[in-house]
Protein backbone atom coordinates (compact mmCIF):
# COMPACT_ATOMS: atom_id res chain seq x y z
CA UNK A 1 0.00 0.00 0.00
CA UNK A 2 2.83 2.30 0.90
CA UNK A 3 4.68 1.48 -2.32
CA UNK A 4 1.58 2.24 -4.34
CA UNK A 5 1.27 5.67 -2.78
CA UNK A 6 4.90 6.37 -3.67
CA UNK A 7 4.23 5.62 -7.31
CA UNK A 8 1.34 8.07 -7.34
CA UNK A 9 3.48 10.71 -5.70
CA UNK A 10 6.24 10.27 -8.25
CA UNK A 11 3.86 10.46 -11.16
CA UNK A 12 2.42 13.71 -9.91
CA UNK A 13 5.72 15.40 -9.22
CA UNK A 14 7.33 14.31 -12.47
CA UNK A 15 4.80 16.35 -14.43
CA UNK A 16 5.81 19.93 -15.27
CA UNK A 17 4.42 22.31 -12.72
CA UNK A 18 5.40 25.55 -14.43
CA UNK A 19 1.85 26.17 -15.43
CA UNK A 20 0.64 26.16 -11.84
CA UNK A 21 -0.56 29.53 -10.69
CA UNK A 22 0.49 31.52 -7.65
CA UNK A 23 3.82 32.18 -5.99
CA UNK A 24 6.59 29.76 -6.97
CA UNK A 25 6.95 26.98 -4.45
CA UNK A 26 8.67 23.72 -3.68
CA UNK A 27 6.48 20.72 -2.92
CA UNK A 28 7.99 18.35 -0.34
CA UNK A 29 6.05 15.12 -0.45
CA UNK A 30 6.20 11.36 -0.53
CA UNK A 31 7.39 9.39 2.51
CA UNK A 32 7.44 12.37 4.84
CA UNK A 33 5.39 12.77 8.03
CA UNK A 34 4.64 16.40 7.19
CA UNK A 35 4.23 17.28 3.51
CA UNK A 36 5.16 20.88 2.78
CA UNK A 37 4.65 23.54 0.16
CA UNK A 38 7.43 26.05 0.65
CA UNK A 39 7.44 29.53 -0.86
CA UNK A 40 10.22 32.09 -0.71
CA UNK A 41 8.46 33.58 2.31
CA UNK A 42 8.57 30.21 4.08
CA UNK A 43 12.27 29.80 3.31
CA UNK A 44 12.99 33.32 4.56
CA UNK A 45 11.60 32.32 7.97
CA UNK A 46 13.88 29.26 8.28
CA UNK A 47 17.55 29.17 9.38
CA UNK A 48 19.50 30.83 6.55
CA UNK A 49 22.77 29.67 5.03
CA UNK A 50 24.96 30.53 2.07
CA UNK A 51 27.59 29.01 -0.18
CA UNK A 52 29.82 30.56 -2.81
CA UNK A 53 30.46 28.76 -6.07
CA UNK A 54 32.75 29.62 -8.96
CA UNK A 55 31.55 28.79 -12.44
CA UNK A 56 33.93 29.55 -15.31
CA UNK A 57 35.58 32.23 -13.22
CA UNK A 58 32.39 33.93 -12.03
CA UNK A 59 31.86 33.69 -8.27
CA UNK A 60 28.26 33.57 -7.05
CA UNK A 61 27.08 33.69 -3.47
CA UNK A 62 23.92 31.62 -3.16
CA UNK A 63 21.67 32.13 -0.18
CA UNK A 64 18.89 29.91 1.12
CA UNK A 65 18.26 27.03 3.49
CA UNK A 66 20.18 23.79 3.88
CA UNK A 67 18.25 20.94 2.32
CA UNK A 68 18.67 19.00 5.59
CA UNK A 69 16.67 21.72 7.35
CA UNK A 70 13.88 21.41 4.80
CA UNK A 71 13.78 17.66 5.26
CA UNK A 72 13.85 18.04 9.04
CA UNK A 73 10.88 20.41 8.79
CA UNK A 74 9.08 17.72 6.82
CA UNK A 75 9.59 15.38 9.76
CA UNK A 76 12.42 13.20 8.52
CA UNK A 77 14.91 11.85 11.08
CA UNK A 78 17.89 13.97 10.04
CA UNK A 79 20.78 13.62 12.47
CA UNK A 80 21.14 10.95 15.11
CA UNK A 81 17.81 9.38 14.24
CA UNK A 82 18.80 8.64 10.66
CA UNK A 83 19.49 4.95 11.04
CA UNK A 84 18.34 1.54 9.83
CA UNK A 85 15.52 1.65 7.35
CA UNK A 86 15.76 5.42 6.99
CA UNK A 87 19.07 4.92 5.21
CA UNK A 88 17.26 3.23 2.34
CA UNK A 89 15.31 6.39 1.57
CA UNK A 90 16.09 8.72 -1.29
CA UNK A 91 15.07 12.18 -2.37
CA UNK A 92 14.07 12.88 -5.94
CA UNK A 93 14.56 16.55 -6.76
CA UNK A 94 12.61 17.69 -9.80
CA UNK A 95 12.61 20.87 -11.84
CA UNK A 96 9.56 22.54 -13.31
CA UNK A 97 10.60 21.31 -16.78
CA UNK A 98 10.74 17.69 -15.64
CA UNK A 99 14.50 17.38 -15.06
CA UNK A 100 15.21 15.08 -12.13
CA UNK A 101 18.16 14.32 -9.86
CA UNK A 102 18.28 11.62 -7.20
CA UNK A 103 20.05 11.83 -3.81
CA UNK A 104 20.19 9.25 -1.04
CA UNK A 105 18.85 10.57 2.24
CA UNK A 106 22.06 9.57 4.00
CA UNK A 107 24.28 11.73 1.81
CA UNK A 108 22.13 14.76 2.64
CA UNK A 109 22.60 14.43 6.40
CA UNK A 110 25.33 16.77 7.70
CA UNK A 111 26.00 14.38 10.56
CA UNK A 112 26.93 11.65 8.09
CA UNK A 113 28.74 13.50 5.28
CA UNK A 114 30.37 16.87 4.73
CA UNK A 115 28.36 17.40 1.57
CA UNK A 116 26.62 20.73 1.22
CA UNK A 117 23.17 20.94 -0.34
CA UNK A 118 21.53 24.34 -0.33
CA UNK A 119 17.99 25.12 -1.40
CA UNK A 120 18.82 28.55 -2.77
CA UNK A 121 16.34 31.33 -3.40
CA UNK A 122 18.78 34.20 -3.94
CA UNK A 123 22.15 34.86 -5.53
CA UNK A 124 24.39 37.81 -4.78
CA UNK A 125 21.61 39.42 -2.80
CA UNK A 126 18.90 39.16 -5.46
CA UNK A 127 16.08 36.63 -5.83
CA UNK A 128 16.81 33.97 -8.45
CA UNK A 129 15.22 34.68 -11.81
CA UNK A 130 15.03 33.59 -15.45
CA UNK A 131 16.62 30.27 -16.34
CA UNK A 132 17.49 29.69 -12.67
CA UNK A 133 13.82 29.62 -11.73
CA UNK A 134 12.83 30.83 -8.27
CA UNK A 135 14.74 28.04 -6.51
CA UNK A 136 17.91 26.09 -7.18
CA UNK A 137 19.39 23.15 -5.32
CA UNK A 138 23.07 24.10 -5.19
CA UNK A 139 25.66 21.36 -4.65
CA UNK A 140 28.94 23.29 -4.42
CA UNK A 141 31.13 20.23 -3.85
CA UNK A 142 30.29 18.66 -7.20
CA UNK A 143 32.85 18.91 -10.00
CA UNK A 144 30.08 19.53 -12.56
CA UNK A 145 26.87 21.41 -12.10
CA UNK A 146 24.54 18.69 -13.37
CA UNK A 147 23.06 18.00 -9.92
CA UNK A 148 22.68 21.68 -9.03
CA UNK A 149 19.18 21.53 -10.34
CA UNK A 150 17.72 24.83 -11.56
CA UNK A 151 13.99 25.62 -11.49
CA UNK A 152 13.59 23.35 -8.45
CA UNK A 153 9.90 22.58 -7.98
CA UNK A 154 9.60 19.43 -5.89
CA UNK A 155 11.38 17.11 -3.48
CA UNK A 156 9.84 13.68 -3.31
CA UNK A 157 11.04 11.33 -0.59
CA UNK A 158 10.87 7.63 -1.36
CA UNK A 159 11.32 4.66 0.98
CA UNK A 160 12.77 1.72 -0.95
CA UNK A 161 12.81 -0.89 1.84
CA UNK A 162 9.49 -2.64 2.31
Amino acid at each position, binding site marked *: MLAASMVVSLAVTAAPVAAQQGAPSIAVSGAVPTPLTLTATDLAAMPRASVTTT*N*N*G*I*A*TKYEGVWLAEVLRKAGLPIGNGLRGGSLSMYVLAA*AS*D*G*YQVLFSLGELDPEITDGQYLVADAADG*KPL*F*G*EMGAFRLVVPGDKRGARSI*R*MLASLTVVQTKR
Partner: protein
Amino acid sequence: MRRAAVAMAAIVAVGSAVAQAPPFAWDIPAPFPKPPVPADNAMSAAKVELGRRLFYDRRMSVNGAQSCASCHRQELAFTDGLARAVGTTGEMHPRGSMSLANIGYSPALTWADPVTTALEAQALVPMFGTEPVELGLRGMEGRFLAVLQRDSVYQRLFSRAFPESSPAGDRYTIANVVKAIASFERTMVSMRSPYDRYRYGGEPNALSESAKRGELFFFSGQRGGCFQCHGGWNFSGAVRYDGGPAVEPSFFNTGLYNLPGETSYPASNTGIHRVTRRPDDVGKFRPPTLRNIAVTAPYMHDGSIATLGEVLDHYAAGGRTIAAGPYAGVGRANPNRAPNVHGFAMTAGEKRDVIAFLESLTDSAFLRNPALGDPWK
Protein backbone atom coordinates in the same frame (compact mmCIF):
# COMPACT_ATOMS: atom_id res chain seq x y z
CA MET B 1 75.33 52.17 9.36
CA ARG B 2 71.78 51.26 10.05
CA ARG B 3 70.63 54.52 8.47
CA ALA B 4 72.65 53.70 5.36
CA ALA B 5 71.08 50.27 5.14
CA VAL B 6 67.63 51.77 5.37
CA ALA B 7 68.49 54.29 2.68
CA MET B 8 69.83 51.53 0.43
CA ALA B 9 66.67 49.51 0.95
CA ALA B 10 64.63 52.53 -0.05
CA ILE B 11 66.67 53.00 -3.21
CA VAL B 12 66.23 49.35 -4.12
CA ALA B 13 62.51 49.61 -3.55
CA VAL B 14 62.24 52.74 -5.70
CA GLY B 15 64.39 51.17 -8.37
CA SER B 16 62.28 48.04 -8.63
CA ALA B 17 59.12 50.13 -8.71
CA VAL B 18 60.48 52.08 -11.67
CA ALA B 19 61.55 48.95 -13.51
CA GLN B 20 58.24 47.15 -13.04
CA ALA B 21 55.69 47.78 -15.79
CA PRO B 22 52.28 48.96 -14.62
CA PRO B 23 49.62 46.26 -14.60
CA PHE B 24 47.63 46.07 -17.81
CA ALA B 25 44.28 47.87 -17.59
CA TRP B 26 41.74 45.32 -18.77
CA ASP B 27 38.38 46.63 -19.98
CA ILE B 28 36.36 43.79 -18.47
CA PRO B 29 33.08 44.45 -16.65
CA ALA B 30 32.11 42.66 -13.44
CA PRO B 31 31.64 39.81 -12.74
CA PHE B 32 33.69 38.38 -15.59
CA PRO B 33 37.21 37.03 -15.05
CA LYS B 34 40.33 38.02 -16.91
CA PRO B 35 41.62 35.66 -19.60
CA PRO B 36 44.77 33.67 -18.92
CA VAL B 37 48.02 35.19 -20.17
CA PRO B 38 51.14 33.12 -20.89
CA ALA B 39 54.07 33.77 -18.56
CA ASP B 40 56.32 34.66 -21.49
CA ASN B 41 53.96 37.19 -23.02
CA ALA B 42 52.76 39.58 -20.33
CA MET B 43 50.11 42.04 -21.41
CA SER B 44 51.05 45.67 -22.05
CA ALA B 45 49.28 48.55 -23.71
CA ALA B 46 52.21 48.93 -26.11
CA LYS B 47 52.04 45.29 -27.17
CA VAL B 48 48.28 45.51 -27.70
CA GLU B 49 48.67 48.61 -29.86
CA LEU B 50 51.37 46.93 -31.92
CA GLY B 51 49.21 43.84 -32.33
CA ARG B 52 46.28 45.96 -33.42
CA ARG B 53 48.38 47.66 -36.10
CA LEU B 54 49.59 44.30 -37.38
CA PHE B 55 46.10 42.79 -37.29
CA TYR B 56 44.83 45.49 -39.65
CA ASP B 57 47.93 45.75 -41.86
CA ARG B 58 47.61 44.34 -45.39
CA ARG B 59 51.38 44.08 -45.55
CA MET B 60 50.78 40.97 -43.44
CA SER B 61 50.00 39.16 -46.73
CA VAL B 62 52.28 38.11 -49.56
CA ASN B 63 50.53 40.29 -52.11
CA GLY B 64 49.36 43.13 -49.89
CA ALA B 65 45.73 42.18 -50.49
CA GLN B 66 44.69 40.93 -47.05
CA SER B 67 45.25 41.37 -43.36
CA CYS B 68 43.91 39.36 -40.44
CA ALA B 69 40.97 41.75 -40.47
CA SER B 70 39.99 40.71 -43.99
CA CYS B 71 38.51 37.50 -42.61
CA HIS B 72 37.83 38.88 -39.12
CA ARG B 73 35.72 42.03 -39.51
CA GLN B 74 34.82 43.82 -36.30
CA GLU B 75 31.27 44.71 -37.34
CA LEU B 76 30.63 40.98 -37.89
CA ALA B 77 32.08 40.01 -34.49
CA PHE B 78 35.35 39.32 -36.31
CA THR B 79 33.88 36.89 -38.83
CA ASP B 80 33.58 37.66 -42.56
CA GLY B 81 30.02 36.88 -43.63
CA LEU B 82 31.19 34.16 -46.01
CA ALA B 83 30.37 30.48 -45.86
CA ARG B 84 34.05 29.67 -46.22
CA ALA B 85 37.00 32.01 -45.90
CA VAL B 86 39.04 33.04 -48.95
CA GLY B 87 42.80 33.60 -48.65
CA THR B 88 44.86 36.41 -50.10
CA THR B 89 45.67 34.46 -53.27
CA GLY B 90 42.08 33.34 -53.77
CA GLU B 91 42.32 29.89 -52.21
CA MET B 92 39.14 28.88 -50.43
CA HIS B 93 39.42 27.59 -46.89
CA PRO B 94 37.37 24.46 -46.16
CA ARG B 95 35.84 26.18 -43.12
CA GLY B 96 34.39 29.56 -42.22
CA SER B 97 36.09 32.31 -40.23
CA MET B 98 35.28 31.97 -36.55
CA SER B 99 34.39 34.87 -34.31
CA LEU B 100 37.23 36.17 -32.18
CA ALA B 101 34.91 37.43 -29.42
CA ASN B 102 36.38 36.32 -26.08
CA ILE B 103 38.89 34.18 -27.93
CA GLY B 104 41.40 34.60 -25.10
CA TYR B 105 39.21 32.40 -22.92
CA SER B 106 38.80 29.56 -25.39
CA PRO B 107 40.40 26.22 -24.50
CA ALA B 108 40.66 25.42 -28.22
CA LEU B 109 41.18 27.58 -31.29
CA THR B 110 39.62 27.29 -34.74
CA TRP B 111 36.95 24.72 -35.56
CA ALA B 112 38.75 21.45 -35.21
CA ASP B 113 42.21 21.65 -33.70
CA PRO B 114 42.69 19.95 -30.33
CA VAL B 115 46.44 20.64 -30.39
CA THR B 116 47.04 24.36 -31.00
CA THR B 117 45.75 26.02 -27.84
CA ALA B 118 47.90 29.18 -27.65
CA LEU B 119 46.94 32.28 -29.61
CA GLU B 120 50.62 32.94 -30.32
CA ALA B 121 51.01 29.56 -32.00
CA GLN B 122 47.69 29.78 -33.81
CA ALA B 123 48.60 33.12 -35.43
CA LEU B 124 51.36 31.31 -37.32
CA VAL B 125 48.79 29.20 -39.17
CA PRO B 126 47.17 31.97 -41.25
CA MET B 127 50.54 33.67 -41.72
CA PHE B 128 52.51 30.69 -42.96
CA GLY B 129 50.05 27.88 -43.65
CA THR B 130 49.87 26.47 -47.14
CA GLU B 131 46.87 24.13 -46.91
CA PRO B 132 45.28 26.43 -47.75
CA VAL B 133 47.25 29.62 -48.27
CA GLU B 134 45.71 32.34 -46.13
CA LEU B 135 48.16 35.26 -45.83
CA GLY B 136 50.87 33.44 -47.77
CA LEU B 137 53.94 34.63 -45.90
CA ARG B 138 55.76 31.32 -46.00
CA GLY B 139 59.30 31.92 -47.26
CA MET B 140 58.76 35.69 -47.05
CA GLU B 141 59.68 36.10 -43.39
CA GLY B 142 62.82 38.18 -44.00
CA ARG B 143 61.15 40.52 -46.44
CA PHE B 144 58.13 40.95 -44.16
CA LEU B 145 60.22 41.74 -41.10
CA ALA B 146 62.34 44.19 -43.09
CA VAL B 147 59.18 46.05 -44.07
CA LEU B 148 58.28 46.41 -40.42
CA GLN B 149 61.78 47.49 -39.45
CA ARG B 150 61.79 50.27 -42.06
CA ASP B 151 58.39 51.65 -41.06
CA SER B 152 58.54 54.57 -38.61
CA VAL B 153 55.24 53.59 -37.00
CA TYR B 154 56.51 50.09 -36.28
CA GLN B 155 59.89 51.38 -35.12
CA ARG B 156 58.12 53.30 -32.38
CA LEU B 157 55.70 50.50 -31.50
CA PHE B 158 58.27 47.67 -31.44
CA SER B 159 60.63 49.67 -29.21
CA ARG B 160 57.84 50.32 -26.73
CA ALA B 161 56.40 46.80 -26.89
CA PHE B 162 59.72 44.98 -26.62
CA PRO B 163 62.10 47.41 -24.92
CA GLU B 164 64.27 44.64 -23.52
CA SER B 165 65.55 43.57 -26.97
CA SER B 166 69.16 44.47 -27.65
CA PRO B 167 70.35 45.25 -30.20
CA ALA B 168 67.22 46.98 -31.46
CA GLY B 169 67.13 44.93 -34.63
CA ASP B 170 66.42 41.83 -32.59
CA ARG B 171 62.95 43.14 -31.83
CA TYR B 172 61.73 42.44 -35.34
CA THR B 173 61.02 38.74 -35.08
CA ILE B 174 58.10 36.53 -35.98
CA ALA B 175 57.90 35.50 -32.32
CA ASN B 176 57.33 39.11 -31.31
CA VAL B 177 54.84 39.66 -34.13
CA VAL B 178 52.63 36.81 -32.93
CA LYS B 179 53.04 37.84 -29.29
CA ALA B 180 51.70 41.28 -30.16
CA ILE B 181 48.81 39.92 -32.24
CA ALA B 182 47.86 37.51 -29.47
CA SER B 183 47.93 40.33 -26.92
CA PHE B 184 45.54 42.36 -29.08
CA GLU B 185 43.27 39.35 -29.52
CA ARG B 186 43.06 38.91 -25.74
CA THR B 187 41.45 42.35 -25.52
CA MET B 188 38.56 41.27 -27.77
CA VAL B 189 36.14 40.85 -24.89
CA SER B 190 32.40 40.84 -25.52
CA MET B 191 30.36 41.06 -22.31
CA ARG B 192 28.01 43.99 -22.70
CA SER B 193 25.04 42.54 -24.55
CA PRO B 194 21.44 43.11 -23.45
CA TYR B 195 21.55 39.61 -21.98
CA ASP B 196 24.53 40.56 -19.83
CA ARG B 197 22.66 43.60 -18.56
CA TYR B 198 19.72 41.33 -17.73
CA ARG B 199 21.66 38.46 -16.18
CA TYR B 200 24.52 40.31 -14.47
CA GLY B 201 23.62 43.99 -14.53
CA GLY B 202 20.40 44.12 -12.57
CA GLU B 203 18.32 45.30 -15.56
CA PRO B 204 15.24 43.04 -15.70
CA ASN B 205 13.85 45.00 -18.64
CA ALA B 206 16.95 44.64 -20.80
CA LEU B 207 15.36 41.59 -22.46
CA SER B 208 12.02 41.30 -24.23
CA GLU B 209 9.49 38.84 -22.83
CA SER B 210 10.08 36.73 -25.92
CA ALA B 211 13.83 36.61 -25.25
CA LYS B 212 13.16 35.66 -21.63
CA ARG B 213 11.01 32.75 -22.79
CA GLY B 214 13.77 31.83 -25.24
CA GLU B 215 16.29 31.75 -22.40
CA LEU B 216 14.15 29.18 -20.59
CA PHE B 217 13.90 27.02 -23.71
CA PHE B 218 17.65 27.29 -24.33
CA PHE B 219 18.60 26.30 -20.78
CA SER B 220 16.06 23.53 -20.26
CA GLY B 221 17.51 20.08 -20.82
CA GLN B 222 13.98 18.79 -21.29
CA ARG B 223 13.28 21.30 -24.08
CA GLY B 224 16.06 22.80 -26.23
CA GLY B 225 18.97 21.76 -24.05
CA CYS B 226 21.21 24.07 -26.10
CA PHE B 227 23.31 24.88 -23.03
CA GLN B 228 24.62 21.33 -22.93
CA CYS B 229 27.14 22.28 -25.65
CA HIS B 230 26.88 26.08 -25.54
CA GLY B 231 26.99 26.44 -21.76
CA GLY B 232 28.75 28.85 -19.44
CA TRP B 233 28.84 32.62 -19.64
CA ASN B 234 30.51 32.52 -23.05
CA PHE B 235 27.90 30.14 -24.50
CA SER B 236 30.72 27.93 -25.76
CA GLY B 237 31.20 25.42 -22.95
CA ALA B 238 33.89 25.67 -20.29
CA VAL B 239 36.38 28.53 -20.62
CA ARG B 240 39.93 29.16 -19.44
CA TYR B 241 40.45 32.13 -17.17
CA ASP B 242 43.15 33.79 -15.10
CA GLY B 243 43.91 31.63 -12.07
CA GLY B 244 41.47 28.94 -13.17
CA PRO B 245 42.03 25.23 -13.69
CA ALA B 246 43.15 23.58 -16.89
CA VAL B 247 40.21 23.05 -19.22
CA GLU B 248 39.95 20.32 -21.80
CA PRO B 249 38.14 21.48 -24.93
CA SER B 250 35.00 19.70 -26.11
CA PHE B 251 34.15 18.80 -29.67
CA PHE B 252 30.80 17.55 -30.93
CA ASN B 253 29.36 15.84 -33.98
CA THR B 254 25.98 17.49 -34.53
CA GLY B 255 24.71 15.16 -37.24
CA LEU B 256 25.21 17.70 -39.98
CA TYR B 257 26.18 14.99 -42.49
CA ASN B 258 26.07 11.22 -42.76
CA LEU B 259 27.80 10.09 -45.91
CA PRO B 260 28.43 6.49 -46.91
CA GLY B 261 32.03 5.39 -47.16
CA GLU B 262 35.15 5.76 -45.08
CA THR B 263 34.16 8.97 -43.32
CA SER B 264 30.66 10.21 -42.70
CA TYR B 265 31.60 13.85 -43.28
CA PRO B 266 32.99 15.44 -46.47
CA ALA B 267 36.67 14.55 -46.81
CA SER B 268 37.77 18.19 -46.60
CA ASN B 269 36.07 18.63 -43.24
CA THR B 270 36.26 15.59 -40.99
CA GLY B 271 36.63 17.60 -37.77
CA ILE B 272 39.26 16.70 -35.18
CA HIS B 273 39.55 13.33 -36.94
CA ARG B 274 41.84 15.23 -39.33
CA VAL B 275 44.31 15.46 -36.45
CA THR B 276 43.59 12.39 -34.34
CA ARG B 277 42.69 9.95 -37.15
CA ARG B 278 40.31 8.25 -34.74
CA PRO B 279 37.16 7.03 -36.53
CA ASP B 280 34.97 8.11 -33.61
CA ASP B 281 36.25 11.69 -33.98
CA VAL B 282 34.81 12.11 -37.48
CA GLY B 283 32.54 15.13 -37.61
CA LYS B 284 33.52 16.57 -34.23
CA PHE B 285 33.91 20.34 -34.17
CA ARG B 286 34.23 22.97 -31.46
CA PRO B 287 31.02 24.66 -30.35
CA PRO B 288 31.57 28.34 -31.16
CA THR B 289 30.53 31.07 -28.78
CA LEU B 290 26.95 32.17 -29.37
CA ARG B 291 27.77 35.72 -28.36
CA ASN B 292 26.98 37.98 -31.33
CA ILE B 293 25.70 34.93 -33.20
CA ALA B 294 23.01 37.01 -34.92
CA VAL B 295 25.68 38.87 -36.90
CA THR B 296 27.85 35.88 -37.84
CA ALA B 297 25.79 34.12 -40.53
CA PRO B 298 26.13 31.80 -42.32
CA TYR B 299 26.44 29.05 -39.71
CA MET B 300 28.20 25.78 -38.91
CA HIS B 301 31.84 25.03 -39.69
CA ASP B 302 31.30 25.14 -43.43
CA GLY B 303 28.67 27.85 -43.58
CA SER B 304 26.19 25.36 -44.92
CA ILE B 305 23.21 26.75 -42.99
CA ALA B 306 22.10 30.27 -43.83
CA THR B 307 19.92 31.39 -40.93
CA LEU B 308 19.48 30.91 -37.21
CA GLY B 309 16.01 29.55 -37.83
CA GLU B 310 17.41 26.82 -40.04
CA VAL B 311 20.07 26.04 -37.43
CA LEU B 312 17.31 25.51 -34.87
CA ASP B 313 15.45 23.27 -37.33
CA HIS B 314 18.62 21.20 -37.69
CA TYR B 315 18.96 20.72 -33.93
CA ALA B 316 15.24 20.15 -33.39
CA ALA B 317 15.44 17.31 -35.90
CA GLY B 318 18.46 15.85 -34.09
CA GLY B 319 20.53 16.15 -37.28
CA ARG B 320 20.21 17.34 -40.85
CA THR B 321 18.74 15.23 -43.61
CA ILE B 322 20.04 15.97 -47.11
CA ALA B 323 17.73 14.34 -49.62
CA ALA B 324 19.84 14.37 -52.78
CA GLY B 325 23.24 15.24 -54.18
CA PRO B 326 26.78 14.35 -53.19
CA TYR B 327 26.09 14.96 -49.51
CA ALA B 328 22.80 13.06 -49.30
CA GLY B 329 22.31 11.32 -45.99
CA VAL B 330 20.44 11.29 -42.69
CA GLY B 331 22.59 13.18 -40.19
CA ARG B 332 20.52 11.97 -37.27
CA ALA B 333 21.84 8.47 -37.99
CA ASN B 334 25.50 9.54 -37.92
CA PRO B 335 27.25 7.01 -35.63
CA ASN B 336 29.24 9.79 -33.94
CA ARG B 337 26.33 12.12 -33.34
CA ALA B 338 26.59 13.60 -29.84
CA PRO B 339 23.92 12.35 -27.40
CA ASN B 340 23.28 16.03 -26.61
CA VAL B 341 21.92 16.47 -30.13
CA HIS B 342 18.80 14.50 -29.33
CA GLY B 343 16.18 16.52 -31.12
CA PHE B 344 13.27 18.31 -29.51
CA ALA B 345 9.77 19.55 -30.13
CA MET B 346 9.56 23.26 -30.88
CA THR B 347 6.58 25.38 -31.84
CA ALA B 348 6.86 28.34 -34.18
CA GLY B 349 6.48 30.64 -31.20
CA GLU B 350 9.22 28.89 -29.25
CA LYS B 351 11.48 29.19 -32.26
CA ARG B 352 10.87 32.94 -32.40
CA ASP B 353 11.59 33.12 -28.67
CA VAL B 354 14.92 31.30 -28.95
CA ILE B 355 15.96 33.53 -31.85
CA ALA B 356 15.01 36.59 -29.78
CA PHE B 357 17.18 35.22 -26.97
CA LEU B 358 20.10 34.62 -29.33
CA GLU B 359 19.72 38.14 -30.71
CA SER B 360 19.97 39.45 -27.15
CA LEU B 361 23.56 38.17 -27.13
CA THR B 362 24.61 40.82 -29.66
CA ASP B 363 27.07 43.21 -28.01
CA SER B 364 26.84 46.40 -30.05
CA ALA B 365 29.53 48.09 -27.98
CA PHE B 366 31.93 45.29 -28.92
CA LEU B 367 31.08 45.57 -32.61
CA ARG B 368 31.81 49.32 -32.53
CA ASN B 369 34.53 49.54 -29.87
CA PRO B 370 37.09 52.00 -31.32
CA ALA B 371 39.86 50.28 -29.36
CA LEU B 372 39.30 47.21 -31.52
CA GLY B 373 38.94 49.07 -34.81
CA ASP B 374 41.31 49.78 -37.68
CA PRO B 375 44.09 52.13 -36.44
CA TRP B 376 45.28 52.86 -39.99
CA LYS B 377 42.09 54.75 -40.88
